[in-house]
């Protein structure tokens, strides 16, 4: 495997070469190549949409001069399933399983963004216990998402054992999700007004065990990768884009924080109970692949802290808002209360109606700002659901990370970008 990057990045390329259009004739002699001494042909390589290192069905058209990436164009849409359109045909509570399947690694964030937007439109207050339960699951989800990222990214860079270790811990999180919601992935645990069910007995103990375990595991991951010469040389100094440029490109989340910008919506614009919690926002210095790795690793540690604080401070009380026009009545009331039966019937058949209006609700997903825009027209179905997915936006930054570097660094950059194609294509 070529191990480029590090100090020996290729010499600066002339500007006219960098502007070469992709997709013209596949082989083309350029004057710049001849002028550089090494007479090299420009070659267009198609990566994907089924290359295993593309983290999904991403297709990249790459123009190469030798091993150096001259231009790069992401071609997306292979996973487009029209989820946003399908949402317009569902009642509000049935949309939740749809939006979960967009960014399939951070389904709790998708749910939170969507439910938050609908709750904003309904002006519905969440009970404190629901907020804490949501944060516990959101942060477990963040660890889960970062673990999948760490495992697959290290795999891309040749560290196969990381994959097994990370997926071992990920499986424990999926067990926790199964315990609280009955589903391992795409749990539909959140609902408008709170969460679907209270956590079962023993869940807290299992989460605490997991948290204690995770602290040790994170140190082990760090020990495995931080001394790994191959990993270091393939991530350090690779894929640097300046902080200003990242902001122009709309990049948020760990990518932006790795470049030194402490921007985290959980702190800047806290929703749920994040304002009550004590956590740090890890930032990087240079913004290379190694910083991105360190930021995400530290974020997992902070997520563990958040979960532990939430368990310590978990308030008693209802886990869902007491609004019978929106939330299903408890099962035991159905046999004794006619009114509950009517509410149940109306909610299940028609769903609840949302007053006309529009709302944009951003949350900090594991990948960055994930925003849900919901337009309500007064009926029981949303008139428009749009998810601003961070992966979709970040895909635009890939070109600037890769141009001028080796093609081996492209794999590293893509791994550290952490795109989820389900979210990109929706």
């Amino acid at each position, binding site marked *: 495997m070529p191990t480029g990057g590090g100090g020996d990045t290729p010499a600066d390329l002339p500007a006219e070469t960098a502007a070469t259009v992709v997709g013209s004739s596949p082989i083309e002699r350029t004057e710049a190549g001849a002028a550089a001494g090494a007479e090299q042909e420009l070659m267009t390589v198609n990566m994907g949409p089924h290359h295993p290192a593309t983290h999904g069905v991403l297709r990249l058209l790459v123009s190469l001069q030798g091993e150096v990436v001259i231009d790069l164009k992401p071609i*997306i849409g292979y996973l487009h399933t029209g989820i946003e*359109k399908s949402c317009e045909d569902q009642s509000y509570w049935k949309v939740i399983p749809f939006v979960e399947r967009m960014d399939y690694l951070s389904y709790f964030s998708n749910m939170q963004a969507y439910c938050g937007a609908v709750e*904003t439109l309904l*002006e519905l207050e969440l009970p404190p216990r629901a907020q804490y339960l949501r944060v516990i699951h959101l942060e477990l989800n963040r660890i889960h998402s970062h673990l999948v990222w760490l495992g697959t990214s290290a795999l891309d860079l040749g560290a196969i054992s990381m994959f097994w270790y990370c997926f071992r811990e990920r499986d424990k999180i999926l067990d926790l999700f199964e315990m609280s919601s009955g589903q391992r992935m795409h749990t539909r645990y959140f609902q408008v007004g709170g969460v679907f069910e209270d956590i079962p007995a023993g869940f807290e103990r299992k989460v605490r065990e997991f948290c204690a375990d995770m602290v040790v595991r994170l140190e082990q991951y760090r020990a495995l990768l931080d001394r790994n010469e191959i990993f270091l040389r393939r991530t350090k100094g690779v894929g640097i884009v300046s902080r200003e440029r990242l902001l*122009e490109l*709309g990049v948020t989340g760990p990518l932006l924080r790795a470049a030194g910008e402490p921007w985290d919506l959980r702190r800047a614009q806290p929703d749920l109970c994040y304002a009550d919690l004590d956590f740090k926002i890890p930032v990087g210095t240079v913004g290379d692949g190694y910083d991105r790795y360190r930021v995400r690793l530290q974020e997992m540690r902070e997520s563990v802290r958040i979960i532990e604080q939430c368990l310590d401070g978990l308030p008693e009380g209802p886990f869902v808002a007491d609004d019978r026009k929106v939330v299903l009545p408890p099962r035991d009331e159905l046999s004794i209360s006619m009114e509950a039966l009517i509410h149940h019937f109306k909610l299940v058949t028609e769903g609840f109606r949302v007053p006309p209006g*529009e709302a944009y609700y951003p949350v900090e997903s594991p990948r960055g700002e994930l*925003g849900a*825009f919901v337009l309500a027209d007064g009926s029981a179905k949303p008139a428009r659901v749009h998810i601003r997915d961070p992966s979709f936006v970040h*895909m635009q930054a890939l070109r600037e990370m890769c141009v001028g570097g080796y093609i081996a660094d492209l794999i590293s950059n893509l791994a550290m970008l952490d795109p989820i194609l389900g979210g990109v294509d929706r």
Partner: protein
Amino acid sequence: MPDSPGLELIAGELRDAHPDSVLATYHEHDQACLIVDPEQVLDVLRWLRDTPGQRYDFLSSLHGVDYLPAAPRFGVVYELLNRDRVERLRVRAALPDPAANGDGADALPAIDSCVELFPTAEFHEREVYDFFGIVFRGHPDLRRILLPEVYVGWPHRRDFPIGGEPVIFTHDERIVPGWTE
């Protein structure tokens, strides 16, 4: 978020700087929105981005909305953010449907592209074009982004039926001849 008087102040200053640019404002659920003239949307965005005291210099999201049956029918929505004050402002360009104004059934609504102001808008605008058929003048590479380039129709418009499109498999070629072209 700018509160309701704050939003009116912004709208007032915008009207002074660019007459008739702001058509309406609304403030609901603690979210502020300016509804602007699509012909002046670049002026408005530039003013909001560059004016000291405003500095909405981060474009969180850009998306299209079809308000059918309301008129003007389309909206291009810009979710702006000032990261220092953590204030969000929604700008909506209200675009009429040229097909309804007798410009022919194939006439597409058009608006200026804001890629120069916010480079992040490139993919967003392509997506809006893809799904709503809103043309962004001056966009560097306005093609369909998620749907195939040969796709016909604008599926996120409200009058485009869900499931109104045949699922194309190879064995359907007998039924839908020439679908590969």
